[in-house]
């Protein structure tokens, strides 16, 4: 049975699917159906193919083999697999961060003249965090020193990653006590790969501690570095309006879809697409302009900083091609389907791979050279324009598109809550304390064809905001909610509970805040820490009435993100499926034991998004109770004596 139609996200997709099938192209849902039934051992995480004595699999029903050929038990196998997922995710975010660092350095040294330092204030702040002398120095000199120091953290062998000391003090001490503070980013990934290879670490608890250390090297390391340096290079996001869904593609313009995760090239594509010469060239080919739209997190990056519209999230990448109006789809890294080239072959779209790290047979490879970034970008844009006349007559752009407001960085949240002079998280904390806002949830992550497109995200987020939980989002989850109209300020009165709606009306925000790409989940860590430091909600992230979720996760990156959130003290629920169910030990550790060891955060798995939302709300309520803010409190009236008792300064 073919489930493509019912899972692909609404009526607008149907003509696209039909046209894909007509052209003989398979889509992700077709291939998913063809994979059925998927391997039960794999689904439960009970198989191992690390060495060639295997492959081995453990019978989850205690009837067959309980040990692999090497003697590894199910807990070891499961923990090893889980740890490798964390390492994979961490490597992805961090390698992205490394590229950004290198371009940042090249820009600071003047070797990449098309890039410049855009946010000098953030540069200065970060430089001070790194103990760099800033007074009386040129911006670029500061940037070079900062870039060099950051670059060293990837290969650092001992000590601690710098951003660890951004976490609440209590959290840092927990990490130090458990020995999970990452020493260097690459070192933790490599050590995880070593410890999970045949015959090394065979205690699941010890493996999972190393997985934690690796994940922290992502959240408080590679990912955070990426966000910070991208903000400095391309500008810290500020609220902006845009539109989302396939309806943003333009019949009359050259459509260039950027897809993947890195903004390095797409930033330049945006510049090139506004170039007069390019626009003239496009006109010469019969197009009225050049329309850039994004897919996945590359989309989120340029949305946040330039308001560039989004064509869709991860599972819509092939559908975009089937509209027949995409002249070029430029892909960089992560979440890019190999099948794009097959689908593109059935239409006129050119899939252009630009990263030296990501090649796909059947695509055009135009390698991006950061030293002549704009020229590279122009070459790519020109290729797209040249393709405009090749459109076949049959095109179909779905009508669906939706307004949205995005661009909520940590800095913006602080600003929007108090202006230039009273910027802080105080109003957020106060309204959590007084109960208007019940808590804060981070709902993030991917799409997964195992569930209808976006459905889990929407069900969960609607349930949360209806219960006065403010939702922070990144990645494909944010795009999902944007398409459903949850990211407009008017959504507050329509979907949010009374208290949350009142706060949204006060600040002028939607009840769901788009904070960026999946690498920007680091912004959520910074925001949570800012809430702790603002005061009144305990002294650690684990004290906060907050929860996290990835209801349609699929990537290893999601596991890395989840693990660093849990280790940072956040209760985190995943949907769809869970990779360690075969092992009682590993699963119990992640779902329960971690909560005790790490004083707070645990994992949970709940495929039903309504029930998952309820778990999050229950957790938030339990935190409110521990904080003593579960009941309405009397207003405090201050007399002179109480004013004298206020802390000095």
């Amino acid at each position, binding site marked *: 049975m073919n489930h493509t139609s019912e899972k692909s996200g609404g009526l607008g997709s149907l003509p696209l699917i039909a046209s894909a099938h007509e052209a003989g192209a398979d889509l992700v849902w077709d291939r998913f159906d063809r994979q059925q039934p998927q391997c039960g051992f794999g689904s439960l995480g009970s198989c191992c193919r690390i060495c060639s004595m295997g492959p081995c699999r453990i019978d989850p029903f205690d009837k067959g083999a309980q040990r692999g050929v090497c003697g590894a038990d199910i807990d070891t196998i499961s923990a090893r697999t889980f740890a490798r997922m964390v390492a994979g995710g961490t490597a992805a975010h961090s390698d992205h961060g490394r590229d950004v660092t290198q371009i940042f350095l090249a820009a600071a040294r003047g070797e990449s003249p098309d890039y410049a330092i855009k946010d000098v204030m953030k540069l200065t702040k970060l430089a001070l965090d790194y103990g760099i002398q800033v007074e009386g120095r040129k911006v670029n000199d500061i940037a070079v020193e900062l870039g060099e120091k950051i670059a060293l953290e990837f290969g650092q062998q001992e000590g601690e990653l710098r951003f660890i000391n951004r976490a609440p003090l209590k959290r840092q001490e927990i990490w130090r006590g458990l020995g999970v503070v990452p020493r260097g980013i690459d070192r933790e990934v490599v050590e995880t790969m070593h410890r999970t290879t045949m015959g090394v670490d065979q205690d699941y608890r010890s493996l999972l501690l190393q997985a934690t250390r690796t994940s922290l090297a992502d959240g408080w390391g590679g990912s955070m570095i990426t966000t910070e340096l991208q903000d400095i290079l391309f500008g810290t996001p500020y609220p902006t309006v845009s539109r989302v869904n396939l309806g943003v593609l333009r019949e009359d313009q050259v459509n260039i879809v950027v897809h993947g995760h890195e903004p390095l090239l797409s930033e330049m594509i945006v510049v090139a697409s506004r170039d007069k010469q390019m626009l003239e060239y496009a006109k010469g080919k019969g197009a009225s302009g050049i329309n850039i739209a994004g897919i996945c997190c590359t989309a989120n990056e340029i949305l946040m900083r330039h308001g560039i519209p989004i064509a869709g999230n991860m599972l819509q990448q092939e559908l975009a091609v089937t509209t027949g109006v995409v002249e070029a789809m430029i892909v960089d890294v992560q979440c890019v389907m190999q099948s794009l080239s097959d689908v593109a072959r059935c239409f006129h779209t050119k899939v252009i791979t630009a990263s030296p790290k990501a090649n796909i047979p059947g695509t055009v490879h135009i390698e991006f050279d950061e030293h002549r970034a704009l020229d590279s970008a122009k070459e790519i844009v020109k290729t797209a324009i040249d393709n405009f006349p090749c459109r076949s007559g049959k095109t179909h752009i779905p009508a669906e598109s939706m307004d949205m407001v995005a661009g909520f960085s940590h800095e913006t949240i602080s600003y929007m809550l108090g202006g230039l002079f009273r*910027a802080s998280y105080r109003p957020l904390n106060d309204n959590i304390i007084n109960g208007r806002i019940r808590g804060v949830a981070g709902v993030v992550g991917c799409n997964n064809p195992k569930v209808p497109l976006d459905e889990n995200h929407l069900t969960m987020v609607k349930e949360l905001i209806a219960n006065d939980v403010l939702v922070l989002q990144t990645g494909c989850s944010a795009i999902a909610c944007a398409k459903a109209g949850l990211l407009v300020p008017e959504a507050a009165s329509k979907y949010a509970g009374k208290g949350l709606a009142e706060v949204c009306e006060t600040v002028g925000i939607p009840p769901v805040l788009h904070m960026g790409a999946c690498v920007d989940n680091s912004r959520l860590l910074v925001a949570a820490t800012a809430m702790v430091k603002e005061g009144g909600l305990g002294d650690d992230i684990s004290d906060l009435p907050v929860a996290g979720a990835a209801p349609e996760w699929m990537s290893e990156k999601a596991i890395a993100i989840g693990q660093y959130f849990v280790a940072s003290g956040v209760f985190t629920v995943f949907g769809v499926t869970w990779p360690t169910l075969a092992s009682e030990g590993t699963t119990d550790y992640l779902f329960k034991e971690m909560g005790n060891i790490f004083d707070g955060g645990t994992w949970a798995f709940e495929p039903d998004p309504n029930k998952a939302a309820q778990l999050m709300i229950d957790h938030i309520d339990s935190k409110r109770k521990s904080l003593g803010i579960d009941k309405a409190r009397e207003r405090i009236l201050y007399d002179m004596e109480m*004013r004298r008792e206020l802390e000095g300064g």
Partner: protein
Amino acid sequence: MSKIIASAAIRGAHKIVDSAESKWREAMDKWGAKQGVGFPNTTYYLPIIYGILGVPVRTLGDMEAVLKRCREMLPPPVREELHLPYLGPALDAGMATFWAEEMAEAIRYLEDPKFYAQGEDPEGDRIWLGAADDVIMRKRGIEFVDGTAPGFAAILGAPPDPAIAVKIAQELQQKNLYVFMGGSNNGDRTSKQLVDAGVQIGWPTRLVSFGPDTSAAVFAIGFATRAAMSFGGCKPGDFRKILIYNKDRIFAFVLALGYVSDEWYANAAGAINWGFPVIADSAIPEVLPTGICTYEHVVSSIPYDEMVAKAIEVRGLKVTIAEVPVPVAYGPAFEGERVRKEDLYLECGGSASDAVELCVSKRMEEVEDGHVELIGKDIDEMEEGSKLPLAVVVEVAGRKMQEDFEPILERQIHHLVNYAQGVMHIGQRDIAWYRISKGAKEKGFLLKHIGAILHAKLHHDYGNILDKVQVKLYTEEPAVKEVLQRARALYSVRDERVEGMTDEQTDVYYSCTLCQSFAPTHVCVISPERTGLCGSYNMLDCRAAYEINPTGPNQPIPKGDTIDGKLGQWKGVNDFVTKTSRGAIPLYNFYSVMQDPMTTCGCCECIAAVLPLCNGVMTVNREFADMTPCGMKFTTLAGTIGGGISTPGFVGHSKYYITQRKFISGDGGLARIVWMPKSLKEEIRERFGKRAEEIGIPDLLDRVADESVGTTEEEILPFLEEKGHPALTMDPLF
């Protein structure tokens, strides 16, 4: 911020900045960039701009950069649909509003220097007071510091009926709040309504008519901003500290009376930056979620009779008021109210008759609590404009009562009686002077009520040391004479007792951290021979305050081992100061201006400063607004050394301390004084003379220079040489 409010505030800010800019252009054309601008007699320039941006606006030309900042900060209008977050931008718009209005008001001072009255009171028809100068700000600011005024209400506009204005003003006065008024509604102005209703307005009655326009709001906000800088030690430009200081410590709010225009919204948005919420009588949208203010930001549709109570609740303020059973309004706001000759019904004391006050302690069984007795005639038996002699004898008893506390309680009579509306009190002891107004008489006020006031308030304020209070009032000549004789004998015994107390013989001093609500690192330590720098507290006051409230701001400090007897430094005191200043101040000397002098908050009556050329020390009192020989006016001095720091070469002190034996004795004592303002000389002449005799230089005061001699060291040195001032031959100060 609701969308409607934010949209209106941003629109209003645009209009206000536009208007200020065009005013500025006209002024530039007329006077040029170098033309000086500013508010009168202040070292805080345009205080909001100075406090928030750290930019001193001295000339018209200086305004250009500030206007540019205003422009940069003005957000675009809020879109009807799909708007971006507007709370932060609206608050910024409010800030730009204040800067623009402050500049516009400064230009008004330039264009029409007589527009605003000078000083604390309206001058005839000129009822607008404009920016408070630094003398007023310090004098009034202290009331915010010590809690006599917990905050202020900034009234924009006016109620529809003058009677409501009078009622709201009086209610605010009774809650001890200052009332700052500006703006108009339908042509009505609250200040004007009060004047027309015969209410005395001005700083002394706390009903401050800042200006006729909405922009007068900047005088209120400027006052608050200066309080943070002068009392809170916040530095200009440290906007965050200044704003949070106001949110936490200055309990102010805005009462918006009338139609709320875009410009009003812009000002309201500005005030919210300071944590000051808005309470409106009209049906504007509300902003209830908390965050920038302590509680709600905007509440609306409040009926007039609930307005003050609602405002106080929204601001999170607790005002405790003792009920005083008198037929007139009662509270500190009425302390500064005058009773003019034409309003006078009855007078006691002054040049008219004898009047005397005495407080004595008695055994418990000798006092019947609440007993008030008048022997002689009362007001209702007297003709309008008549005079009576008066003796007020307060007899108290209590297990914790001590003889030392008698003069303290007696000194309370002055302000306690003054708090009654329509009653004016001047002086104390045998120079007391009472004036009762026709208004008070009409409301049924009797001399007997003085007894009721003293009974109620002494119980309220001093309940910890006394259990019973009875008051006897005499208005018959022989009885008054008899009390007068008895009182004078007691006064001299008390004086000798206090004079006899020395620092050396006293082992326990007292702290005063009353000002820590405003100057968080400042610690006063008070010894018998060094009274508090604010002039309000001597050591006996502190001891009594400690007895009354053992966990309060006055604590006993065993002075411990003497580290330096000459300079006045003790181990116990240092330990206490270190702890109580939270480590900021490890030690100080009581008797030196040169070496580690005592810290100074913003409240000092006088500031002494070393004059190197003259080998001496000058001192200047708060009321003296002109230049002094140290090159700084009082207000600059206070701004430089105030806020709880110890600055060698400078020290804050009380007027009384000048004539105490330990006055800068570590540096040579009274003989070091080479300059004082003339008015201060006159004020302390008698006591100064006594001290001068004690040190063997009876004509010392005549050898001390004042402003008539000069206001620079070079100008006064020849005078000192001619007079043979002793400081010139003393050990070199450096």
